[in-house]
């Protein structure tokens, strides 16, 4: 549904996006992470045919973003970074305006608008002017606008940034539901936990380039390493480190704890426990350390920053 190949965008000599290639199939969610100014919004704008790529190709729902701009725009729902609503209008009037641009007949449009307003807990605010909505409500209404024409592809720029936890969960649930309905999502976000929950694929973009891409597990392995286990004992380790070293790779240890990695926890963990018990070590817990997307993100960004520094020195 989204096929971008070596997308590049240059503004007056400034390279905003360089060599961005992504492929997102039906029912998949790609989360694009990156610092402010990394090129996320520019990428989304190229995918909605607002910006023309300087080079490279991109197809959305099978339509080329340069040669079939109107068709592309007809097949995507876009949630922009700033919600940008017409504040003097009421919600139904607003949705009617956008729905009619997409040539949806009045009855269907009204039904769909009411259904979505209900789905996103906005039905109570139908008769209020949009200007009177809270920030989170405005963002939800923008999302309803993006969904009103039932698009197969959704490009969402920071979909839950202004929402309270309850509303954010509502939106996440809606995304998961739509994903089951074979919709394709590209989500840009700073909320790493959200990306970890929603995304099948994650791309980290920095200075216009994708510096890491893959599933969460892939990225974890590549940038954080194998899953780490933590063993906590009652008292001192007393030979436990040496005993563990024969079975697993000990990474670090301290007073009453040690951390190790193993490729085969099913085989090694019981063996290690048996050995330690044999040594008289009182094991309190043995558990995997939770690794998050934040660890991946920070490692990727730090690695890229280091590369950048080396490159600058070389120049």
């Amino acid at each position: 549904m989204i096929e971008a190949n070596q997308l590049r965008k240059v503004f007056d000599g400034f390279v905003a996006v360089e060599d961005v290639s992504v492929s997102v199939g039906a029912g998949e969610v790609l989360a694009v992470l990156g610092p402010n100014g990394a090129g996320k919004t520019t990428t989304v704008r190229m995918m909605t045919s607002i910006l023309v790529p300087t080079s490279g190709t991109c197809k959305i729902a099978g339509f080329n973003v340069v040669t079939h701009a109107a068709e592309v725009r007809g097949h995507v729902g876009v949630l922009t970074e700033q919600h940008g609503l017409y504040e003097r209008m009421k919600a139904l009037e607003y949705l009617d305006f956008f729905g009619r641009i997409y040539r949806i007949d009045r009855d269907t449009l009204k039904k769909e608008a009411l259904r979505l307003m209900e789905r996103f807990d906005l039905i109570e605010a139908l008769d209020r002017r949009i200007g009177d909505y809270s920030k989170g409500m405005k963002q939800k209404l923008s999302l309803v606008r993006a969904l009103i024409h039932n698009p197969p592809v959704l490009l969402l720029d920071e979909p839950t940034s202004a929402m309270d936890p309850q509303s954010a969960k509502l939106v996440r649930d809606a995304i998961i539901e739509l994903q089951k309905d074979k919709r394709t999502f590209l989500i840009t976000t700073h909320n790493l936990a959200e990306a970890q929950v929603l995304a099948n694929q994650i791309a980290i973009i920095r200075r216009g380039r994708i510096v890491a891409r893959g599933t969460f597990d892939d990225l974890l392995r590549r940038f954080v390493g194998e899953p780490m286990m933590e063993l906590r004992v009652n008292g001192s380790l007393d030979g436990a480190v040496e005993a563990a070293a024969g079975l697993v790779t000990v990474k670090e240890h301290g007073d009453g704890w040690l951390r190790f990695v193993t490729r085969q926890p099913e085989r090694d963990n019981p063996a290690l426990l048996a050995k330690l018990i044999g040594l008289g070590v009182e094991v309190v817990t043995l558990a995997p350390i939770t690794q998050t997307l934040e660890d991946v993100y920070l490692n990727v960004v730090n690695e890229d920053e280091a590369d950048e520094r080396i490159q600058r020195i070389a120049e």
Partner: protein
Amino acid sequence: MNGFNASLSNALLITRREVRDSFRDWRILGPIIIMTFFFPYIANVLAGRMIDFVNYYGGGVISTRAIPFLLMVVGFFPVSLSLVIALETFVGEKERRSLEPLLSTPLTNWELYVGKTLAAMIPPLLASLGGMGIYLLFVVGGSAAWRPQAILVVQIAVLTLVQTLVMVAGSVVVSSQTTSVRAANLLASFILVPMAIVLQAEAAIVFVAPDFNSPTGVAFLWMMMIGMFVVAVLLLRMGAAIFNREELLGRAIDSINPKRIGRGIWRNFLAVDDAGNIAHSVREVYARAVPYSLRRLRPMIWVGVAAFIGAFAFGFIVGLTPGYQPTLPSDLMTIEGIQKLQLSERFIDPSYRESVIRGVYYLHLRHIFLGIALGMISFGVAPLILMPLMVGSLGYGTAILMANGITTAPIWVAAIPHLLLNVPVLIIMTVAGFRIGALVTKLPPNMTIGQAWSQALGDALKLGVFVGVPVLTLTYVIELLVLSPLVSAVVAG
């Protein structure tokens, strides 16, 4: 629904939404109500006082003309509001961040542009026509008992409509090319100043027109209407042509980088191909750079040829039209006649001959570069008038001489270098100047207005410097060293 109807229906969706939004804003609605209902009342009172005053001093004609003048004023005041609405039509939405969702829809550029332009026009125009209607009720049904020529009222109403169109078209262009409402307001003076001049001219015409009571209306007002309508159409075309989704969210004309502009023009001045390569030697300029620019002008060359032929034909026809023919002395082309005019002495005098030839040389040079400069600010119309004007006067002169039975053959012989060398060059330069201004009404594909202007200006300067100046200089030298002594010898007998 066919393509056009579907597009129009989409454009009207935007218009409806924006007009509704305007009427919800008390800051727009308030002035509209005041200007529609209250201002005509004031104008009527003012007209009554003025009529009494000028009649007291026997100035009846002034009072007759004050009423339509005030009708124009009543119509214009609400129209000035269109400027405010139109100036913020794109840039205002951009500042409120509501533009991007709209740009992400399947609406075409044309639909967005037309929809928004109409939306900026309708509320002020309704107020204007409403105000004029109320004022007319006052002056026709009230104590003034004005009984105007219907055509005059129609003229003023149409004039108001066209003024609105011009102001809105110009403001929407500004609005779609700036980054902030503040910048748009500052640039509004480029619309307000010419409109203020036009309004003063209209007022003067209404007061002094000799054909005020003509059954076909005041001729000058028709001319102004047509002129403004042409400008409005050109502005609308220009606006639609340079309207660009990408640039709306990106750059703007309120930040000008002279260095970058200069570099762009310089590269185009020496460009030899579309890849941006430039000429590095004079030989390369003539072998590659000049033909490259000429190729681009080739599809438009007929415009220049038509302008020159048309101008000559027009001048010639006017010259043959009775009433436009001055009678020349019958002995003008006889030796005695020439002697009487002391022409022979002048032609024998080399410094006089040289000054005439130099004068023509400098005139052509001025026209070349003036055409380029004026082309930019006149939608390309100025070069089409400037250089063909000379040809038109030549046609007129030829007709006058022929009408007086004077043979023109010697003149044509003397003009051979001009015909063979200068005329083609001047046609090329006319087209180059025309292109600079006209391109804003239809941009080349995949080019921004800045890129297109830079290319057209680079081409025009290249052709002016490397073709225009050398060819005109060559003609100057031939005329000075060969033709001038020859003519002098013939005249001297």
